[in-house]
């Protein structure tokens, strides 16, 4: 008798985020996002590639509701996270964020900066005197150690170099114990060597912890090197979805130089 076939492991392809027909316009005239449809798989390192002004940052900020989308839906593990009834605080615990300009509070110590990643879990009155629980401190220091920055824990954040600051910012996102990290041009203001180092940390640590990463980049090189999957954006639209191998010169031309509206007119 035949043994029943083992089902292939489907966790790799489980959809953690599903963006459906998302649009965002400012004042009715400027359309930052024009009908975005993207699925994000659990645990993947997804790069959103596109030129400045393509709408990458807006899309990322719609995901954790720093920006309110104009229309469309976002599903997180099948549950809608757009609309007024969503608990933003609970939602944002799930999404760690890393910024282009690091956005560390310069006058606070490295450790306190990382501890701010725990604020989503603490009530306001319990953080009134900057006190954190032992548990929170352990989580913060572990996060720092993951990016090898624990030795600078008690320095002021502005004494660090750019690359070090971004590693601390990654630690801050990790301290949130998120399921997803949104990285908005995390290496745009770093030199190539440091940029690769930071992306390496980001990819390796999130892989170890099983965190999904959505990373905006405008550099093709880094995208080829680090992306497990790529979404290409141009002028508020998705114009490409695939892997690094699919990223041909023709595709790059479409992402960086072509007007997606022109293409639609000619194609249809």
């Amino acid at each position, binding site marked *: 008798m035949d043994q029943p076939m083992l089902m292939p492991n489907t966790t790799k392809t489980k959809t953690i985020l599903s963006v459906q027909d998302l649009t965002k316009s400012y004042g009715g005239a400027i359309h930052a996002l024009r009908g975005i449809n993207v699925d994000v798989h659990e645990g993947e390192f997804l790069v959103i590639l596109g030129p400045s002004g393509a709408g990458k940052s807006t899309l990322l900020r719609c995901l954790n509701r720093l920006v309110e989308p104009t229309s469309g839906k976002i599903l997180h593990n099948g549950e809608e996270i757009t609309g007024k009834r969503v608990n933003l605080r609970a939602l944002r615990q799930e999404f760690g964020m890393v910024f282009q300009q690091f956005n560390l509070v310069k006058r606070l110590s490295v450790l306190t900066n990382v501890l701010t990643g725990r604020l989503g879990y603490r009530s306001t009155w319990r953080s009134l005197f900057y006190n954190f629980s032992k548990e929170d*401190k352990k989580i913060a220091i572990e996060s720092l150690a993951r990016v090898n920055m624990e030795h600078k824990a*008690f320095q002021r954040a502005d004494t660090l170099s750019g690359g070090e600051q971004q590693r601390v910012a990654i630690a801050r996102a990790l301290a949130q114990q998120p399921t997803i990290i949104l990285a908005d041009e995390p290496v745009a203001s770093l030199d190539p060597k440091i940029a690769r180092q930071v992306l390496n940390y980001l990819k390796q640590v999130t892989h170890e912890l099983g965190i999904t990463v959505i990373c905006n980049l405008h550099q093709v090189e880094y995208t080829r090197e680090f992306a497990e999957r790529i979404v290409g954006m141009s002028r508020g639209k998705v114009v490409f979805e695939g892997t690094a191998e699919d990223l041909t010169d023709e595709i790059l031309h479409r992402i960086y130089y072509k007007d997606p509206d022109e293409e639609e007119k000619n194609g249809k």
Partner: protein
Amino acid sequence: MTSATFESAVQATLQREVQVRLRRYLKLAIYGAIAVAALWYAAVQIKLSFGALISGVPFMWDFITRLFPPDFSYLSVLGNATIETIQIAIWGTLLAILLSIPLSFLGARNTTPHIIVFHLTRLLLNSLRAINELVFALIFVSAVGLGPFAGVLAVALHATGMLAKFCAEEIEGVDKGQVEAQMAAGATRMQVILFGVTPQIIPQFIGYAIYRLDVSIRSATVLGFVGAGGLGFSLIQTMKLFKYHQTATCIFVIFLLVLVSDWICGKLRRKVI
């Protein structure tokens, strides 16, 4: 990092966190103790006493009841004094603005022509700020005679000290990148001040000048105490003559004036900044 070294690094940092925190608490306790001791000593010296405050309440109440009802017929006499108060404040602030423009550039490290000029300017500004408007008014009353002009000069000099120092500090805090770009283009010192520094400080300067106008109106209401014009003269005069109902009217007008100036200045400031 292997998991063993990872764990030991985390443990070591956790222990250091405790040390760092204890050291900070110790420091806080020492400085706190010094501050409490100094404040306690000062409180004893200046006879800070809640008892005296409480036992003084009936006397205050007595004074307040004597003020009522205010004599509103006295308003017709105060009309001119009120307008004079506003005029003193406006002219005083205007002169202060004009004086503080050059002084603030001379008194900022990054725009001063020479370090000696910088120190002399700061010395001048410090002495202007050190002397209260009422003291200035006394000096000018003896120099230019009784009347509002002495008040204008008093307001102007004190406000100059404040405004120029504030502005000089703003100048020292400007973004160096914007200045560097113009130096790189071969601009002269004066051109850099005009094109690189001034645009950066204008909003703060205007905001502070409006705030100064507000403060000047408040101080112009008391300059009359020493004969330098405005509402203060009527205030002190009616008190000396025990015409408390008229004093109440003066206080009422001053209150209204301050309220209106606060409202107008607040609106102006929001518009500019």
